[in-house]
């Protein structure tokens, strides 16, 4: 089959109906650029959500004693071997930390609130969780031996307490007996949402262990540079810490994981709807092009061009216009992503943004696999949309066509 000839005919026919094809080219360009930008924004939202879930004291992976999730008590603490460190290559690891995390009641002079009180090594914690990114009024915890407490702003407001004041913590010790101790408020942290501020209070891990009467921890949290490294790290942790549970952030934060999957589906739905809408425009244009050239197709058949070559010619014309719209659309889409690379400021809608679980700045996140998917969809669209017009073209009877 003379593909060079058919390609040349296809290319020149695009210019022959340039106004109509320019409109179609523009529609494809806008749709493709829109798909590329939109998918990167959805990915931005999706990856922000994943980062938030992982930073919310979850990590990519968490090690806990069996049953701790259902009953988070100090009784389910475990001892970590002195020499333990996660067997993860340094280039895949952000950091890891041990925590003691128990339910507690905090009492101020005026109010009492139930919280999750967490004993941490502040330096390790800041490297892997949201504590590293929050603003703190007053002091941050100085180290694992710091016996002061760090509260969320909202919790402090509810307790009617402030930096430098004392509060009392009541919780259960490792022996099952109640423990009570006074803590001075070191500082108040300002997290992205008030839910976090109300839920978590922090103190140095060592004094907290002493209060609880244990040298054990309730969890080890591991933060990786990319969630793709999880499977291998998971296997290593299971091997090194037998008898303990290793859970990933998707299991620990099922709602966030469901939202993550929903974002995948949203990209797919967006792509399919846009491409289907485009398909009708493309089919319409190609049918018009075939019907306008009935005589020409008849003549080509009369001169001896086979039906297969007619089909290929229509398909080439379709694929050429889709491919040119696709290439330029991708370039425009990438340029738009570059333009918005510092993020789109959503702070004007701060309340709605928080409700939707978005950050104030939505930063596009480019995945080349999404660009490839847009490309693949568009090419399939070009082939699919040309099928019916090509069928119409091969059904043209040369004799009827030449009589017109």
């Amino acid at each position, binding site marked *: 089959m003379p593909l*060079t000839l058919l390609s040349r*005919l296809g290319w020149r*026919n695009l210019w*022959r109906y340039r106004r109509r094809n320019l409109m179609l080219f523009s529609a494809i360009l806008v749709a493709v650029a829109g798909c590329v930008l939109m998918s990167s924004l959805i990915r931005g939202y999706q990856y922000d959500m994943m980062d938030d879930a992982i930073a919310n004291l979850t990590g990519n992976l968490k090690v806990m004693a069996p049953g701790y999730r259902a009953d988070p008590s100090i009784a389910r603490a475990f001892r970590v071997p002195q020499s333990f460190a996660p067997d993860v290559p340094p280039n895949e690891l952000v950091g890891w930390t041990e925590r003691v995390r128990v339910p507690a009641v905090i009492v101020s002079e005026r109010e009492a609130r139930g919280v999750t009180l967490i004993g941490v090594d502040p330096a390790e914690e800041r490297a892997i969780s949201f504590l590293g990114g929050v603003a703190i009024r007053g002091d941050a915890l100085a180290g694992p031996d710091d016996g002061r407490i760090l509260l969320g702003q909202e919790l402090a407001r509810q307790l009617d307490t402030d930096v430098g004041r004392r509060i009392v913590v009541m919780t259960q010790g490792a022996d099952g007996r109640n423990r009570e101790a006074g803590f001075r408020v070191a500082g108040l942290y300002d997290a992205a949402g008030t839910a976090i501020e109300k839920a978590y209070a922090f103190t140095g891990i060592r004094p907290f262990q002493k209060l609880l009467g244990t040298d054990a921890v309730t969890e080890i949290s591991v933060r990786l540079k990319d969630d793709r490294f999880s499977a291998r790290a998971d296997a290593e942790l299971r091997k090194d810490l037998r008898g303990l549970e290793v859970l990933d952030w998707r299991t620990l934060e099922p709602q966030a994981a469901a939202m993550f999957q929903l974002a995948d589906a949203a990209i797919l739905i967006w792509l399919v709807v846009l491409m289907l809408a485009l398909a009708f425009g493309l089919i319409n244009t190609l049918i018009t092009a075939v019907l306008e050239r009935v*005589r020409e197709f008849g003549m080509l058949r*009369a*001169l*001896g*061009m086979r039906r297969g*070559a007619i089909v290929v010619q229509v398909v080439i014309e379709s694929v050429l216009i889709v491919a040119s719209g696709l290439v330029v659309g991708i370039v425009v889409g990438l340029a738009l992503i570059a333009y918005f690379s510092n993020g789109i400021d959503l702070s004007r809608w701060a309340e709605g943004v928080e409700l939707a679980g978005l950050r104030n700045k939505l930063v596009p996140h480019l995945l080349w696999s999404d660009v490839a998917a847009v490309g693949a969809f568009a090419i399939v669209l070009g082939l699919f949309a040309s099928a019916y017009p090509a069928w119409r073209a091969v059904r043209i009877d040369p004799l009827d066509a030449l009589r017109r």
Partner: protein
Amino acid sequence: MDNVVVCRGLGRVYTNDAVPVHALQGVDFDVAPGDFVSLSGPSGSGKSTLLNLIGALDRPTEGRVTVAGVDLATLSDSQLADLRLTKIGFVFQAYNLIPVLSARENVEFIMQLQGVSATERRERAIEILDALGIGELAERRPGQLSGGQQQRVAVARAVVTRPALLLADEPSANLDSKTTETLLDLLRRINVERGVTIVTATHDPIVIRYARRSVRLKDGRIDADERTAAATA
């Protein structure tokens, strides 16, 4: 030498609104190699139908057509397309050049479908365009050519592959008489110098005069078949 075209008992019935129309009835018609035949007759006499059957664009309802020794009834649609591509050259009333290709590319078109190499295609296209006096127009597209020039390009496209048979359907219908004479001089030259067999359907008395054999049809039958003055000239 065997006849290029052999038609035996040829009939073609069209059914319009359930009423059968006998466009051709029992036609026996042969064309010898190197002949120049005109098919004439009033509208509806069957001349275009006969030309289409010989050109493998239509299938008879009765009888058989043999072109260059091949019985068309035995061929599939694809094989008929191949036969048209390799054995038959067509010149249409409305020129039917491909508008997005230049004159040279139009002439090269069929050779390209036949798989002739690029160099040979180009040489042969330029040679035939020069021979037909339109070499300097080779890179112009059909829209930049006059009707007569376009018809010459169509003739060049039809004969460049050296077909066994050249079929021309009303080739002068859109041309003035001077251009018609020029075209017919050209067809005669191709017929005489290149030995191409030509069959043309026409109303035009000038065309009939140029042909060496005149076949007149009436009501789907051959009414007269005679040598013209051109045959004895």
